[in-house]
């Protein structure tokens, strides 16, 4: 009985938060990765680590944000009593059973809500910052979504390959209008058909989400099988050439030997697919909008950097003047006057270099193209620290002389 109770406690405390987290983490097209048909042990295995982390994180949130005092020793004693066969219950367990069961229930509800929230936020964070495309660790198992949506082109391997292909539009954000597919399907034995259409949806195999089950196409055409006497030349995967004069777009005759498949949605059995050719049509409007946004942001940034540069230059000029002289005795300070009157020119120069280097850390550099940018930050910091070390003698000397 105690073992069952102990397992129930562990299930409630660790497995359920993990399950809830995974349910909310795998959203949308990736929700198939959370499969209720998974074996129990499989679900437990993948839920236990997120469950432990969420449990620890919630306890920290309760302790530091809500100032709820938790004694981990008491928690340990209670858990031990539940999981082991004990004749006499610990006083902490007795107190818990008498007074704190309601609080535990409320905490469990908080944990469930918190797990869902964390799962939701983390998954959106990963997608928002394209971490699933940059790093394999965050990539979802539903590779077919990345393939059909065109996001696969944002992955490192494909980004490098795409430079040698002929999609020449500068499409950094991968704004895809639609995906056009050429699908070669094996009907039976040696009979094959080639279909083309715009991909609108797909289904995955429920047992293995890496396998495709069905593809849904709109505006589907089948490549027509025609004999050699016909005016159209046949090719399975290549191009159709018209031997007559140029086709007028307004005519109802297709430009190739294609037969339109009437209907709203064409569903292809993916198990019979031999190969698949995809073309991602760029969304020109969105690309132009993104370009304009980028330019605007770039201009704003440049204006800001220019202003910073101008202000720092002004500060430098003022420092240069006041480091060697006190014009019209503007500054009335005993320490400043002592510095001006008692320090040698070389020492003042060293101190000026320190000020210059300090300002340089925050100053943007204008490159050959006239663009302001922050460069070599760590080198500047290093030089600044070196200048501090050089000026330490100045500072110590100033202190002793004053005193």
């Amino acid at each position, binding site marked *: 009985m105690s073992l069952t109770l102990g397992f129930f406690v562990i299930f409630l405390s660790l497995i359920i938060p993990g399950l809830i987290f995974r349910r909310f983490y795998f959203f949308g097209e990736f929700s198939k990765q959370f499969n209720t048909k998974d074996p129990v042990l499989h679900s437990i295995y993948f839920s236990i680590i997120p469950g432990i982390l969420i449990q620890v994180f919630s306890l920290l949130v309760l302790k530091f944000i809500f100032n709820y005092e938790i004694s981990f020793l008491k928690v340990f004693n209670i858990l031990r009593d539940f999981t082991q066969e004990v004749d006499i219950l610990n006083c902490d367990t007795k107190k818990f059973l008498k007074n704190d069961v309601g609080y535990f229930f409320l905490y469990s509800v908080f944990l469930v809500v918190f797990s869902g929230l964390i799962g939701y936020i983390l998954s959106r964070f990963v997608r928002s910052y394209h971490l699933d495309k940059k790093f394999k660790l965050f990539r979802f198992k539903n590779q077919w979504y990345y393939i059909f949506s065109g996001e696969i082109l944002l992955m490192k391997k494909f980004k490098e390959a795409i430079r040698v292909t002929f999609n020449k539009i500068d499409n950094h954000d991968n704004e*895809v209008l639609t995906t056009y597919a050429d699908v070669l399907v094996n009907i039976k034995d040696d009979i094959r058909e080639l279909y083309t259409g715009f991909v609108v949806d797909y289904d995955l195999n429920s047992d293995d989400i890496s396998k495709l089950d069905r593809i849904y196409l709109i505006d589907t055409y089948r490549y027509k099988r025609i004999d050699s006497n016909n005016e159209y030349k046949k090719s399975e995967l290549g191009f159709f050439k018209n031997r007559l004069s140029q086709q007028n777009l307004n005519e109802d005759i297709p430009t190739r030997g294609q037969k339109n498949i009437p209907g709203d949605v064409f569903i292809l059995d993916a198990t019979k697919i031999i190969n698949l050719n995809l073309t991602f049509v*760029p*969304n020109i409007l969105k690309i132009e909008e993104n370009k304009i946004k980028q330019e605007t942001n770039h201009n704003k940034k440049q204006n800001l950097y220019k202003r910073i540069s101008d202000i720092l230059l002004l500060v430098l000029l003022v420092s240069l003047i006041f480091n060697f002289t006190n014009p019209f005795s503007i500054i009335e300070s005993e320490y400043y006057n002592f510095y001006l009157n008692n320090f040698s020119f070389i020492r003042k120069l060293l101190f000026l270099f320190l000020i210059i280097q300090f300002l340089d850390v925050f100053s943007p550099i204008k490159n050959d193209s006239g663009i302001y940018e922050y460069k070599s930050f760590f080198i500047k910091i290093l030089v600044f620290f070196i200048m501090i070390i050089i000026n330490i003698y100045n500072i110590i000397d100033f202190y002793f002389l004053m005193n």
Partner: protein
Amino acid sequence: MENKGTFLDNLIDVIGVVSIVALTIHLINNIKKSTETKLISQDGYNAIQDPKKAKKLRKVIDDYHKNGQWDTKEIQSIIE
């Protein structure tokens, strides 16, 4: 006088809560929009629903397959 103050406080509290709820909903909608998992964009869907535009789009794709260049003006006219 006290009742008016209390009423004002309550009103400000209600406005504050409503603002927070509205802001939260706005943030959630923004996050949803930027992270939605769609195979086909709304512009693309609208384009292929129209048979004439779908035909034009096919022609653009055929030309791209032949010469490796996208006819950006034609795509723009299809989307608009």
